[in-house]
Every structure is written in C-alpha cells, then in structure tokens.
C-alpha cells in the first residue's frame, strides 16, 4: 500500500513536468531535413531492371520498333505480290515481241536486200 501511495505521489509530482516536456520538444531544423532528403535521394536504389529482351525483340528495337516492323512487313508482302502476279497486258506485249523476232531485217527495210546484192 505504501508503495502504491509513493508511486501515486511520484506520478502526480511528475505529470506536470512531463506535460511541459512534451510541449517543449526539440525541433528538427529545416537544414537537417534537407540534408536527410539529399541523403535519401543519393542512396535511392535503382528500380529493378526489365528482363532482357529476346533476339527478335532486340532486332525490332534496333530498326525502330513495331512501326518500322509493320512497314517492313507491308513492303515484303507487296514485293511477293509483284513477283507472282502477272500484270494484265504483259502477255500481249510478250506475244508481239515474239512475232517481231520472226521478221528479217530485209523485211523491215525493203532497200536493204538490194544493197546486199550490190555488195555481193
């Protein structure tokens, strides 16, 4: 009982002092806060590195990413189409060329035959 009384007396005696102490807390200066911000930013860990891209992804990236790949694919398909598809009218032109090859030079230049005879 005596100990309880002593404890109560001590608590009553000190409470006002503790209250005053809590109201008079030491204040951290703005300079300290700035130094701590600076430390934090200097020590900030690097964000985790992304997984290493595969060979195709790296080639794609090197030539300009997906827009460049789309252009390249379009050009490739167009090239194949041009290579396989026979344009309309090309056959007619080819046939005419074969017919022309059947003529001799003399057929096209009537005077050529006479000149040849004179030289002979």
């Amino acid at each position: 009982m005596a100990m309880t009384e002593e404890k109560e007396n001590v608590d009553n005696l000190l409470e006002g002092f503790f209250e005053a102490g809590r109201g008079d807390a030491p204040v951290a200066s703005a300079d300290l806060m700035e130094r701590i911000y600076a430390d934090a930013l200097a020590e900030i860990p690097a964000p985790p590195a992304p997984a290493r891209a595969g060979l195709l992804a790296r080639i794609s990236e090197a030539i300009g990413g997906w827009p460049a790949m789309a252009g390249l694919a379009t050009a490739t398909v167009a090239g194949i189409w041009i290579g396989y598809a026979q344009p309309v009218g090309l056959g007619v032109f080819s046939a005419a060329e074969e017919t022309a090859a059947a003529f001799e030079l003399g057929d096209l230049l009537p005077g050529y035959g006479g000149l040849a005879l004179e030289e002979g």
Partner: protein
Amino acid sequence: MPFDARGDDSDEALLAAYGRGDAAAVRLLTERLTPRLYGYAARMLRDAAEAEDVAQEAMLRLWRMAPDWQAGQAKVSTWAFRVVSNLCIDRLRKSGRSVDLDAAPEPRDASASAEAGLIEADRAAALQEALARLPDRQREAVVLRHLEGLSNPEIAEIMDIGVEAVESLTARAKRGLAAGLAGRRAELGYGDD
C-alpha cells in the same frame, strides 16, 4: 501515385516503396520519423549539433537498409529509435558524459530560491536538467515512455531488454526525477500540496 495518396501508407509500405526505387516515399518518411528521432537524440545528448548528426546517421542507415527490409519484422520507427538509442549511448560513453546505472541522482536543494511566475518552458528545462542526472538507461526508458509516448513492448525492443526490465527502469527513473524536482515545485509555480 500522387504524393497526397501516400499519406495513409504505413512507414513499412513507404520504406518498401523506397527500396524499389520510388523517390516519392522519401519526403513522407523523413517528415514522419526525423522530428521524433531528433527530439529523442536531443533529450539524450543535450546537444543540438550532436543530435542532428545522430538523427541523420540513423536515417542514412534506414535508407541503406531499405532494399533488404523484410515485411513483418519490427516496425520501421522502432528500428530507427533503436539505432538512435545505440548511437546516443556510444557518444555518451566515448565523451565521458555517460551516467552509470549505479550512480545515484543528486537531489537538488529544496530551499532553492523561489521565483514567482515561471513559465512552462522553465518546467521543461527543470525536467531536462533532472533527466540529465539520471543513469543513461533510466533516461532512455523514461524519455521513450513519457515524452515520446511509446509502449513498454516497443521500448523493450528498442532497448533490447524485457518488458519487466523496462517497467523497473522507468519506475526507478521516475523516483530519481521526483527526488530531483520535488524541491522545485513551489519555485516552478505548482504550490504546496
């Protein structure tokens, strides 16, 4: 994430975010922890410049430890108080200012000259003087309990002792403070009762 949205995050969540390289967590964590750590160090060391060095060192250790922080371990604030506590005790011992547990607090002369109208700051100063005469471990316990408002289990973790030992240190510290301050109650405007 916008800065304001971080206000409700726990210290642990903010530290984990910092550990992942998120700079937005820095300001909030610094504003939450630094004033408390500095205040505690200043009360232990009674030297503003030294207390600033200790608070900065403790926060630096926190930043460096962030990537390895394990969720579910101690609270960030408890961890930081513990670092400050150890740094303060080291400094007190190295500078010869340490007060051993065996040293008895020196009671003040009860007939000290009275001055009427002393303000609250004088009471705080008287408390600080009385705290400085306590053994280091008693001062740690009573400052953490009655000025920083931490719980006994938190203090036990910070001081690396059991809860009962904390209670014992706090009780002895309070008796020492009472002995030092009893004679000053009238002087500090409390009157006789």
